[in-house]
């Protein structure tokens, strides 16, 4: 049973971390990428990607390190202009800071290695620091996570089950279509607002939904490279608690229903969603200059059990789901049901297909008939 849970968790992780790191660790930059907006528009971008992949993404690949790791981040720039990597918030030394005037440019055709010790766990960012105003709005950024093997946020900090990178950014379509024409830069005003590079209906795609199992605590790794001020609204069912900001523990963790994130800031917020919950963290984007609200996007959070049955991934789904009293299945024999912790809740036959759950604790459950496929359901009150 434990192996089944692990396998399910791994699937969920794979789905939610579609831009995670792959070996060998060598980034490259390019200026001929394409990013698809929600309406299908193919927009030119500049950005970072893995050499092994051969393409760039927006945002760039997630870089993950373990606390205390000595990092050599290899970087090649085959693009037509100079670029750098600034390791935002990692407090690296001047030589590795990625600022052209105080560190160095990585000119066309050149490779380099940024070296540093990932000495503190937390959420960090990286971005190009050449003509920064332009290179960032073109898409040259990504997130860095430094984590601990024991799945605690920091030494003496709370434990959690899963990292959820949430990267806010925005862009101005006219600038991406005509970068030289974007001058003067102080007039740049974004008109596309993104969460992990996605907007609008793209955020409803399964891979963009934050799935959880009841009882799990998720670490939302919130970071912004937007030009906007971002405001997240947390529904009470998420039980959100802010634990860290800018890669440091906050002195007093605090429960929150909203959180504003300025360009360059990061927060780590633990959420423990209630069983059977399916809702959104609304994300407002406010213009920094005049304070007008520009757009609202969202982070969808959903009990994984709901997703499995609704998307039809199993031919053996019960109805209704979530359920309060009875779930109706096709007649089945040798049926076993486990709760989210792997405890057996039922073992027997369902000749009429009716599984009575009225007295069961609220939560997520797994059900299997014989050696058939596993289905999941939620019991609500």
């Amino acid at each position, binding site marked *: 049973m434990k192996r089944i849970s692990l396998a399910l968790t791994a699937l969920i992780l794979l789905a939610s971390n579609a831009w995670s790191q792959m070996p060998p660790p060598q980034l490259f930059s390019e200026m001929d990428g394409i990013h698809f907006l929600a309406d299908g528009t193919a927009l030119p971008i500049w950005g970072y990607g893995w050499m092994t992949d051969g393409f760039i993404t927006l945002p760039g690949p997630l870089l993950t390190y373990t606390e205390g790791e000595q990092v050599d981040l290899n970087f090649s720039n085959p693009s037509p202009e100079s670029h750098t990597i600034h390791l935002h918030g990692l*407090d690296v030394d001047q030589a590795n800071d990625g600022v052209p005037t105080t560190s160095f440019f990585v000119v066309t055709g050149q490779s380099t290695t940024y070296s540093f010790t990932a000495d503190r766990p937390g959420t960090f960012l990286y971005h190009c620091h050449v003509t920064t105003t332009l290179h960032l709005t073109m898409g040259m950024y990504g997130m860095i996570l430094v984590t601990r093997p024991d799945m605690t946020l920091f030494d003496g900090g709370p434990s959690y089950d899963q990292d959820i990178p949430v990267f806010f950014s925005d862009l101005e379509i006219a600038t991406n279509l005509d970068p030289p024409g974007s001058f003067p830069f102080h007039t740049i005003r974004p008109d596309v607002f993104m969460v992990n590079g996605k907007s609008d209906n793209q955020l409803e795609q399964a891979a963009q939904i934050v799935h959880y199992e009841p009882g799990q605590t998720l670490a939302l790794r919130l970071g912004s490279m937007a030009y906007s001020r971002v405001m997240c609204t947390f529904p009470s069912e998420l039980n959100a608690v802010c634990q860290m900001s800018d890669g*440091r523990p906050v002195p007093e963790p605090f429960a929150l229903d909203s959180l504003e994130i300025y360009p360059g800031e990061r927060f780590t917020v633990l959420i423990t969603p209630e069983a059977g919950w399916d809702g959104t963290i609304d994300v407002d984007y406010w213009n920094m200059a005049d304070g007008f609200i520009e757009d609202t996007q969202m982070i969808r959070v959903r009990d994984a059990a709901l997703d499995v049955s609704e998307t039809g991934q199993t031919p053996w789904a019960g109805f209704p789901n979530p359920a309060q009293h009875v779930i109706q299945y096709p007649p089945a024999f040798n049926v076993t049901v486990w709760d989210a912790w792997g405890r057996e809740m039922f073992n027997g036959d369902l000749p009429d297909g009716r599984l009575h759950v009225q007295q069961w604790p609220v939560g997520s459950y797994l059900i299997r008939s014989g050696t058939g496929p596993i289905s999941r359901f939620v019991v609500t009150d």
Partner: protein
Amino acid sequence: MGVCSATAMNAQDTLWIVPGTFIQGNDTMPALRAETQASWTGFNAVIDREANTDASIVVFNADSVAHTWSTNAPDAENVTLPAGATVNVELPSLPQGSYQYFLNDEQGKILGAGGLLRIGWSTETLFYWNLREWQPSMMELSAAGEAIDWSLPYVPRHFTINERSYPSTGDDPNAYVAVNLNDTCYISISNFGHMNHVLHFHGFHVDIISATDHPERLGWNKDTVPIRKGESLTVRLVAFQAGMYPVHNHNLIAVTNAGFYPGGMITTINVMP
């Protein structure tokens, strides 16, 4: 552990509200400053006072119109400064921290008179960053007595620290943080503009040790620090590594001069080994 040093434009006795012309690149703007002298230099003065002590300052309004004096201290009151008049302004008793004084009438705010009010730091070493952005067309309108339509998009062309934009911030010993390795220094930061700002420190995290608007962030250790409009902060920086590290606004339209990059709100921390 040592401390750093810098010379502030201190106003301890008298402050002059002085009209003049602010020049940034090809833009010339009608402006006001709170000066330490009767003539225009273009820089707002810092007022230093002891903590938890009532104090005052003499303010001479050399402008041709009346203005309104205020501070961002709790329960601050407005004081009218008639044109050409001299007024003795009471400064409230305040705990140690960084605050701001400013002109609270629309023209006074837009034309840019106002500075840091540092409380209780007389024996400490300080730098200060007076943050402000400038939209020349709005300043022209305001100087002509026109009302400002705040429903229109706000698109400032210049962004300054202590009335200087990068690279001129390097000429200001209060903006350019030159310290020795392992020094501890304090930076008073205040936002006098009409928009929120956010500063990112390369190479360092800083401790927030005073905050007028968000005291819940006291004690936070951050590398990216929002300073909302009207807000004042004090941060402590421990110079644990040598080298030159930028500090800049991470709203990246604000690191430009009339649209040219780099410029605007950028300064440097220079830690000498």
